[in-house]
C-alpha cells in the first residue's frame, strides 16, 4: 500500500513539472507577443 502512495507522490511531482513547462510556455509566448507588438 505504501509503495502505491510513494508512486502517487512521484506522479504528482512529475505532473507539477509538466504544469511548470506549460507555465513557462505561456510566459515565453507572452513575451514573444509583446516583442511583435513593439
Amino acid at each position, binding site marked *: 500500500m*505504501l*509503495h502505491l*502512495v*510513494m*508512486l502517487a*507522490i*512521484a*506522479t504528482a*511531482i*512529475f505532473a*507539477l*513539472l*509538466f504544469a*511548470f*513547462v506549460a507555465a*513557462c*510556455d505561456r*510566459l*515565453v509566448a*507572452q*513575451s*514573444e507577443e*509583446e*516583442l511583435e507588438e513593439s
Partner: protein
Amino acid sequence: MAIEILIPVIIVGLTIALAWPLSRWMKWAMDVDHPGPLRRGYEDTMRGLLGRLAHAAQGWRAYSVSLLVFNAVMFGFTYGVLWLQPRLPLNPDGKGPLEPSLAYNTIASFTSNTNLQHYSGEVAMSYFSQLFALVWLQFVSAAVGIAALTALCRGLAGRREIGNFFTDLHRATFLVLLPLALLLAVILILLGMPMTFEGAAVARTLEVAVQTISRGPVAAMVAIKQLGTNGGGFFGPNSTHPFENPGFWTNVAENLAILLIPMASIWMFGRIVGRLKHAAVIFSVMFALYAVFVTSAMILESEPTAAFRDLPVAADMNLEGKELRFGPTAGSLWAVSTTVTSNGSVDAMHDSLNPLTGLFPLMGMWLNVIFGGVGVGFINMFLFIVVAVFIAGMMVGRTPEYLTKKVEAGEMKLALIALLAHPLFILGGTALFASTSWGLSTILNTGSHGLSEILYEFSSAAANNGSGFEGLGDNTLPWNVATGTVMLLARYIPILAPLAIAGSLAAKRPTPETAGSLRTDGLMFGVILLATVALVGALLFMPVAVLGPVAEHLSLEVR
C-alpha cells in the same frame, strides 16, 4: 608539507589539461558539423532503433516534455526493480525488499543525478538492483544533463530547433559517458578495485572469528559514479571504503574524474556557440572560486580539532575523520571538489571537518555553479549570467543583451524562478525540520552543529549533490519523502526554465554589437559575473551560515 600542496595542484592541473581535448570530443559527439561515414552509420543505426522518437527536431517545449517523460518512465521502471528485488536474479546474498519510502528516496535520488543514499549498498541492494537500477540511472541521469546543456547551447547559438532529446541522450550515453567509464573502470580494476558477481566472501580471522566481506561489481559503479557527478557509492562508506578506493592512485584517478566532464562542459559550450573567449571567462570565474574554496579549506583544516585543545595530545592538524592512506590534505581537496561539482562521493567524514572548513562544502552546494554537475553546472551559471547582464544593463541604462539577444522581463522572471527555488528548498526544508520532531529527533548533536546537520542534508538534496554530512538518522519517512521531493523538483526546475529562456532568446532577432554593448569575453564581464554570484549567494545564505558553522566556530573559540 610541500608534497601535500603539490598533489592537489597536479590533480587539478592534469584535469584542466585533459578537459580541453575532451571538450573537442564532446562537441563532436553531441553536435557534429560534418559527420564521417562511421558516425553516419552510428546515427542511422540509432535512428532505426529509436524509430519516430529520434526523428523530429524539437523546440524547447517539445524537448522539455520529452525530457520529463523519459525521466518519469525511468523513475517507474527502476522503482519496480527495487520493489521486486527479492524475486529478481543476481541476488546471491538474498537481499530483501526496500522499505517504500526508502525506495522512493533512492530512485528520486538516482533519477535526479543526486545519489543521496539513506541506505548502505552492501546491506540493502542486490547486484541486479545496483547494476540495472542504480548504475543505469547513473548513466542516463548524467546523459540527461549533457543533453540539456547541448540543447541550451543550440538555443543560445540562435537555433530555434534545439535538437532532439532522445538523439542527444543516446549520444551522451554511448559516445561520451560509456567510453570514458569503460576506460576508467579498467584503470580502477588494474589498481585493485573488485569487479565480480560472486557473493560476499567469508573469512576466518586469526582469532577464529568469522568475517563476512562484501564485494561485487564495484569498478563498474565507481567509474560512472565519479565521471557522471553521481557520487552514489557501492558501499556505505563510499570512497573511504578500501574496495571503493583501494589506494593513492585510485584516489587521484577518482578525484580527476569528479572534475573532468564539468570542466570540459564549459569548453563544449564555447565550441557550440562559437565563443571560446566567452567560455574562457566563465571557466576563469569558476576556477577562481574553486581555487579560493580549496585553499581556504586546506588552510582551515590544518588547524587541530578543538576537542584536542586541552588534551595532552600532539596534533598539528585535524586528522579526525580523515582517510590517512590518501594523505591528510586529500580529504579537504575531495570535500570541495565533490560539493562544488554536485558529485557527492566522499573520502573523508564531512561531519568531522572543523566548523569553518565545513562551511566550504556547504557554500559549494549553495552556489552550485563552480563547474557544477555534468551539464547542469553551466546551466546553473547561465541563470547567474542572465541576472548579471540584466544588472549591468540597468547600471549603464541600456537594454541588457546576451550573445546579441535582448534580455527582457520574461527571461528575467524565468531566471529568478529557477534561482530562487534553490534557496527556498534549502532554507524552507531546514526551517521545517529544525523546528519539528521530524528533524530534531534525528540529529546526533545539539546546537549549531545539529542545525548544520539538517542544513547540509537539505543543501545536498537541493543541489543534487548527494554527499552526507552524517550525524543524522536520515532513513525515516519524513526525511525520505522530503529530500526525495526536493531532489526531483530541484533537478528539473533549473533545467526547464533555462531551456525556456534559450527558446525565448532564440526567437529574437539579433541586435548588432556596438561600442556600448557589454562584451562577454573580457575581464569586466568576469568581474560582474563573479560579483553577482558572490553577492546573490551571500544575501541568500549568510544568515543560515552564521547560525550554523560560524556560530559553532565562535562557540569553540570562546570555550
